[in-house]
C-alpha cells in the first residue's frame, strides 16, 4: 500500500495535474526529512499549534483562577511551573498564551501576505509609473525599524491585541511586496506569459492566475522566517505594555509583570521567556530548511 503510494508519487510521468502537485509536495517532504534542524523545527511548530488548539485539554488549571494564598509559589506537583503574583498557574497560562500568540501571528500573515503579493505582482507586471509609485510607498514603510513604527501606531490606536495586529501588519508587508515584485520581474517577459496574452487573457487575469502562484514558494519561505520576527515583535509590544493587556496570558505581557520580582522569583519570567524563545527558534529552523528545499538556487 505504502510502496504503491510512493511509486504513484514519484512517477516520472504524472498522468494528472493532481498527481504532479502531490509529487512536488512529496519531494519537498523527502528533502525536508533529511534536514535535522528543519525537522526539529517542524515538530515544535506542530506541537505549538496542537497546544493552542487543545489548550482546554492540556491545561491543569483555569488560567484566570487566582489563588492569593499561593502567590509566587515555586514549581511543584500541583503547579508544574509555579504560580504568578496573583497565584495563577503559570503552566496553564503558558498553554492558553499560545492561543494569543498563534492568533496574532496568523492574523498578521493573513493580512500581510496577500497584500504584499498583490502590490508586488502589480508593480512588477505593469512597471512604469505604477511600479515607481508603489515602490516609493514601500520604501517609506521600510524606512522605519518595525518595532518603532508598530509602537507609534499602537500608541495612536490605543493599546490592545487588535491594534498590535494591525500595527505589525502595517509594518510587515513591504518585504513581501519587494519579494513578489522581484519574482514577477523574472517571469514577466517569459514566453508562456506572452502565450497567455495571445489567447486573450486580461492583464489582471494574468497577474492573479498565472504570476501570483509562481511567487508562492518564495512567499512561503519568507512567511516562515518572518514568523519568529512577528512573534518577537508581538512579545516586545506586550512587554512594553503596548500589546496584549495584563489579564491576557500573552507571553510578552507575562514577562512584563514578572519583571518586578525577577531577582527573587525568576521562574515566573523564565517559563514565558523559554516559550517565546523555543517557538521562534523552531520557526527559524523550519524556515531555513524550507529555504534550502524550495530554493535550489542556493546550492
Amino acid at each position, binding site marked *: 500500500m505504502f510502496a504503491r503510494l510512493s511509486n504513484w508519487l514519484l512517477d516520472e510521468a504524472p498522468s494528472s495535474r493532481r498527481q504532479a502537485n502531490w509529487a512536488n509536495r512529496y519531494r519537498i517532504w523527502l528533502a525536508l526529512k533529511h534536514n535535522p534542524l528543519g525537522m526539529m523545527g517542524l515538530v515544535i511548530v506542530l506541537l505549538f499549534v496542537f497546544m493552542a488548539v487543545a489548550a482546554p485539554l492540556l491545561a491543569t488549571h483555569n488560567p484566570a483562577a487566582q489563588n492569593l494564598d499561593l502567590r509566587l509559589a515555586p514549581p511543584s506537583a500541583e503547579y508544574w511551573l509555579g504560580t504568578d503574583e496573583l497565584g495563577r498557574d503559570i503552566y496553564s497560562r503558558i498553554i492558553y498564551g499560545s492561543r494569543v500568540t498563534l492568533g496574532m501571528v496568523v492574523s498578521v500573515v493573513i493580512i500581510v501576505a496577500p497584500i504584499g503579493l498583490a502590490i508586488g505582482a502589480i508593480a512588477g507586471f505593469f512597471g512604469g509609473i505604477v511600479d515607481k509609485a508603489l515602490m516609493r510607498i514601500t520604501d*517609506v514603510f521600510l524606512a522605519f525599524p518595525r518595532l518603532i513604527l508598530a509602537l507609534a501606531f499602537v500608541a495612536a490606536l490605543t493599546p490592545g491585541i487588535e491594534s498590535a495586529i494591525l500595527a505589525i501588519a502595517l509594518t510587515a508587508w513591504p518585504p513581501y511586496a519587494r519579494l513578489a515584485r522581484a519574482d514577477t520581474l523574472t517571469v514577466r517577459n517569459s514566453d508562456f506569459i506572452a502565450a497567455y496574452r495571445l489567447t486573450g487573457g486580461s492583464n489582471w487575469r494574468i497577474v492573479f492566475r498565472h504570476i501570483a502562484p509562481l511567487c508562492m514558494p518564495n512567499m512561503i519561505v519568507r512567511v516562515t522566517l518572518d514568523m519568529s520576527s512577528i512573534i518577537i515583535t508581538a512579545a516586545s509590544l506586550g*512587554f512594553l505594555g503596548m500589546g496584549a493587556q495584563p489579564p491576557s496570558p500573552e507571553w510578552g505581557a507575562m514577562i512584563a509583570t514578572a519583571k518586578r520580582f525577577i531577582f527573587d522569583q525568576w521562574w515566573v519570567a523564565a517559563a514565558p521567556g523559554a516559550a517565546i524563545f523555543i517557538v521562534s*527558534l523552531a520557526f527559524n529552523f523550519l524556515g531555513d530548511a524550507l529555504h534550502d528545499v524550495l530554493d535550489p538556487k542556493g546550492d
Partner: protein
Amino acid sequence: MRGFLKGFSGTLGSVLVTLFGLTVVTFLIGRVMPVDPVIAAVGDNAPQSVVEQTRIAMGLDKPLPVQFADYLWQLLHGNLGMSILTKNPVTHDIAHYFPATFELATYALILSMLIGVPLGVWAAVRQGTVTDQVIRIVCFAGHSIPVFLLALISLIVFYKALGIAPGPGRQGIIYDGMVPVQTGLLTIDSLLAGDTGAFWDAVAHLTQPVCILAYFSMAYVARMTRAFMIDALKGEFVITARAKGLPLRSVIWAHAFPTVAVQLVTVLALTYAGLLEGAVVTETVFAWPGLGQYLTTALLNADMNPVVGATLLIGVIYVGLNLLADLLYRLLDPRVR
C-alpha cells in the same frame, strides 16, 4: 564619474520622496488617529470652552492639508512641538537623550562587526561541517531570543547572582552629574575631563547592554557575511589563487574578503538601524536614559509630539544610513561606477 553622479542624483531624488513620505506617515500618526491631541494636552476634565480654545491655539481646527503644511513648515524650522510630559521642546529633549542611545548603539555595532564578520567567514570556509552548524545555531538563537529577555537573564546572572556587573543605569551614583557634558557620550566626556574613575564606571555600565545588543546584531552580520563569502569563494579568481598555490589564509583574506567587504557596507547600515530598534527595548530594561526610554515613556502617557518626533528621527537616520551605504557602495565597487 559622470555616471556615478547621475546614478547618485537618481538615488538622492528617490530619497527625498521617501523623506516626504516619512513626514506624511508621522503626521498621520500624530493627527488623524483616534487619540485626541487636545484632550491629551488639557486632560479629560477640562471644560468645553478650554478644549475649544486649545484646539484653535494648536491649529487643529484647520483643514488637514493646511495642518500638514504647517507641520512641514515647523519641521523645516527644526520645530517638533512641545512635550506635554517634560514641558520642553521635543528637539531639546531629543538632543538630551539621543547621545546615550548613540553611544550604546555605536559600541554595539563595532563589537558585532568585530565578532560577526570573522565568524561568518569561518562558517563559509567550513561550510557544511560541524563548525558551520554550531555557528548557524548560535546565530539562529540570536535571531530568536527577544532582546528584553536576554537583558533580564543577563541582569539575573551577572548583576544578582555573580555580582560582577553594575546594575541598571548609565553611571554609578557617585559619578552622577560629575562629568561636564560636552559630547553627551560619557566615555568621551569623562576622558576629556580627565576623570578615569568616571570613564571606567561608564565602561562598566555599558558592558552589559552593549554585549546584548551586539549579540543580537552579530547574528545578522555573521549570516550575511557567510552568504556573501560562500558566493565569493566560488569565484574563478579564488580557484586561480588556490591553483597558484597561495596559502588558504591569504586567499580568504586578501582575495575573497575584499569583494565581500563592499557588500558588508550595506549590511552595516541595516545593522545600525536594527540596533536603534533593539536599543529601545534594552533601554527600558536597563533604565538607560536614552531615546528609547524617552519614546516609551511618552507612549505610555499618550504624549504624541515626542512619539512622532522620535519616530521621525529614527526614520530619517535609517534613510540617511541607507543613502550613505549606497554612496559608499558606488565609490567602492568599480562595477557600479
